[in-house]
């Protein structure tokens, strides 16, 4: 028996220490061109941390919502650059990754109070809009699956509401801007569109104003004072015994106790 085999046998026979990490498969990835072996199943973000990177920027919610961790990657054998949020995409063997968490794209300054719903507001603040050649690279780069080019087209057509609607799920990661032939700053334009839409175009929720007025007028004071004065166990019981709207309830459902409706 060779010395090597002996060692292997000894290692197998030895009881595992409790502190020893469970066996994991490692996959090779390249972060900014340097090879690392990282555990399979890790997200790109965790893989980078495993490789020694420490994020003080380019990392936010870790839940695919904040848009802070835009990342470009390419898989072996494919010329295409692909995009993902580092906190969402898991590693694949041989992939090259580079985080591009921020773009120094120009963001127009404006006085919000003076903005109107006119299409020209967007044209004036972002004249680059008209540099779009409809190449659709922005759409292909969107990790949110937004039809980015359609939203740009809507802005050109003066349809601010349409742009706000199409780009509603934009998390402003900026990857579209990174791929743009015309050097547009789509994500900033869409934010402007959503702000104009929300403040100048979308119908006001009148019932909200009514309710605010009712609260200010003291309609719920007695109820709230009562709750504040309650002992903790009374409050818990009240909460547990509350009437919950059934899942199958229709629009006309109302609770049995209608004191405050």
């Amino acid at each position, binding site marked *: 028996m060779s010395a090597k085999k002996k060692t292997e046998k000894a290692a197998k026979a030895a009881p595992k220490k409790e502190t020893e990490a469970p066996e994991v498969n490692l996959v090779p990835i390249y972060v900014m061109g340097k090879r690392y072996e990282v555990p399979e199943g890790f997200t790109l973000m965790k893989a980078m941390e495993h490789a020694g990177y420490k994020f003080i920027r380019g990392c936010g919610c870790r839940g695919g919502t904040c848009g802070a961790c835009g990342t470009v990657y390419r898989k072996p054998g494919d010329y295409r650059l692909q995009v993902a949020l580092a906190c969402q995409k898991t590693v694949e063997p041989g992939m090259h990754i580079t985080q591009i968490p921020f773009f120094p794209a120009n963001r127009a300054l404006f006085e919000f109070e003076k903005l109107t719903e006119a*299409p*020209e507001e967007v044209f004036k603040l972002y004249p680059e809009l008209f540099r779009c050649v409809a190449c*659709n690279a922005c759409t292909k780069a969107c990790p949110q699956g937004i039809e980015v080019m*359609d939203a*740009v*087209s809507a802005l050109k*057509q003066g349809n601010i509401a349409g742009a706000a609607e199409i780009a509603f799920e934009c998390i402003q990661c900026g990857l579209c801007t990174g791929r743009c032939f015309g050097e547009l700053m789509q994500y900033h334009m869409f934010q402007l569109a959503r702000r104009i839409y929300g403040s100048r175009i979308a119908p006001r929720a009148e019932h909200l104003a009514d309710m605010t007025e009712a609260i200010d007028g003291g309609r719920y004071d007695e109820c709230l004072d009562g709750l504040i004065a309650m002992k903790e166990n009374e409050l818990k019981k009240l909460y547990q015994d509350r009437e919950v709207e059934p899942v199958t309830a229709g629009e006309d459902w109302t609770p049995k106790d209608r004191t405050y409706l």
Partner: protein
Amino acid sequence: MDTMKLAYYPGCTLKTKAANLEEPALASLEALGFRLDEIDRWNCCGAVYSLADDDLIHQVAPVRNLIRARQQGNDRVVILCSFCLNALKRANLLMKGDAEKRDTLNRFMDEEPEYTGEVRVLHLLEVLRDDIGWETLSKKVKQPLRGLKLAPYYGCTLLRPREVAIDNVENPSVMQDFLAALGATPVEFPESTRCCGSYQVVGNPGDIPGYARDILRSAGRRGAEGLVLTCPLCDYDLGKGQQELVKKEGFPGMPLFYFTQLLALALGLDPAVCRFDLNFGDPEAFLQEKGVISAEPTPQKTGGKA
């Protein structure tokens, strides 16, 4: 007439500054038993057809619109703006006739279905001429524009280059026939197919009055009381130019109309659909004087360029 659906490509300007070109067209077509069915997800036409032989990236925008029209099962698409017409029609010819460039463009747009120029690109005037016919149109006229001496202004993009012209390049008649069908008196003038200055004036705004002077004065000398347009850029250049001429040269002023506004009026539709608030000058005063519209003010929407 049965209700007929026509795939429709509007173009960006018709949705903003030139709603007075689009809105009367939509109302008129409906009155004629057609329905303009706006294609989904259209983008800018590219505005200017790129003449550089190897500049294919600027063909992507017009071709993508043709693909959208095709995707919705259309074999023809109608356009009102003559600039959009020109860009889409020429890009379509490229896709039809140049196998190598077609292949390059199709491969670039790998997210779209293959396109080989199947859609026919038409101007609304062609639909009125060929689908409806002048005789039928004249029978649908409820308020003939009698006594209106109007000069058709073709500009460039309806007729040039030859391979995309909607009519005889040298001697077009489609707009005269259109105006005659509406009961108006067409006034021919030699500058009818002269360039308005197009987008060249963007860099040289001082040139605008020069283009407008030749065109408007020529039409006026031949007795025209108004000029009929198909293109928002012609409207801008001739409108802006006219303002200068009125201010500095004592030009009496000539109302500018989109052909679709005249169509709507002749079909007896509510003048409010014409959106005269977006016209240069005061065409309503002229129409009132001629008894085409009543003196009551039409409800004005927001906007207005003058």
